[in-house]
């Protein structure tokens, strides 16, 4: 129930996610992002425009990827988060620790800023 598309945008990797990020699907995202990080691509943008929901399992994967990316002097940044998902991120404290942008272009550009 989760589709992940990965696209290289210069030094930044855009990870477009569609579906529900939950206990049944979060492992796929972790695997794909970890593979990118292992290739030395530590500047990640997660496109959240297609994410309908995230449970605690999804949030823990975001946290793990963010920590790994930052340890490699990169970052995980979010883009185009839907209001209903934003409420979960707010309540779970994630909007206070992750950088979140209105759209993927702004998130990608932020790495050059």
């Amino acid at each position, binding site marked *: 129930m989760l589709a992940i598309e990965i696209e290289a945008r210069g030094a930044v990797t855009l990870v477009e996610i569609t579906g529900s990020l939950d206990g*049944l699907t979060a492992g796929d995202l972790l695997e794909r992002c970890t593979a990118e990080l292992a290739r030395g691509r530590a500047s990640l943008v997660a496109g959240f425009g297609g994410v309908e*929901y995230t*449970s605690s399992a999804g949030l823990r994967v975001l946290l793990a990827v963010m920590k790994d990316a930052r340890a490699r002097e990169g970052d995980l940044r979010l883009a185009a988060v839907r209001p209903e998902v934003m409420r979960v991120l707010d*309540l779970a404290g*994630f909007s206070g620790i992750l950088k979140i942008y209105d759209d993927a272009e702004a998130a990608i550009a932020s790495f050059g800023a």
Partner: protein
Amino acid sequence: MTTPRGKVALVIGSGGVKCAAAIGLQYALARAGIGLDMVVGCSGGALYAAIAALGFTPEEVHEKTLQLWTREVTSTRRRGARWQLLFPRLFGFSAEWGFRDDRLILERLRAAFGDRTFSDARIPLYLTATDFATGEQVVLSSGPLVPAMRASLAIPFIFAPYRVDDRLLVDGFLSDPLPVNVAIREGANIIVAMGFESPYQRAIRTPARFAFQVSSIMTNNLLKSRFAFHNAVHHAEVILVVPEFAKRVGVFDTWQIPYVIEVGERAAEPHAAYIRRLLDAGGTG
């Protein structure tokens, strides 16, 4: 980590009449064939947690809420409360202080729940309150239901803290407005958490509104920090359900209960489908 079997908990946070949305949530879960293994409730959520655990019918739920929770429960001033506030030494202020008389709410709780105890619940039931002396969360899970609910509903300044087993207890929201930790501790690995943020005041022109605003700010920040911690550090799957109310629902708007239940049901439907898949997959994924 995959567990052999999903153990499902429903946690209902504080939120006054909005907590009735948990009834709609249960309809959605029941339609998906999802049973509950335990229920946890806090403050207004304690009422609906008890109702869910006792297995009342939807008609009974509606009827009991209409009987229990009306503006009258907080409309009678407690004799001497104001004088105790103004001249505490002269009139003997104590920790068991509140502005409002609690006899009516106790009477209504007794009418609704009678002498039922926690052991009458069909599934394990946990209600939370806060120790007024230490600030610690207190989990009530045995003995008569009415004192436990009264303690969980001891809204500061409105109702006096309430003594249960030699401990003076105040509203559960003061220690955690959404006590997910109780479900984790009791072994749940799929936790459906229905939480509500305290509303902010539209205009602040009285000291009471000012106090409500301060309380909402503190409560909402406590809700977020506690939920963030439980969400991040435990391996239980926590599914947060936050109903969106297009209409304003006041603390005593019991006439809006059918609407509140409907919103809860709608908010829960997509989650119910996911929980079903999760259970079919054998646990927490």
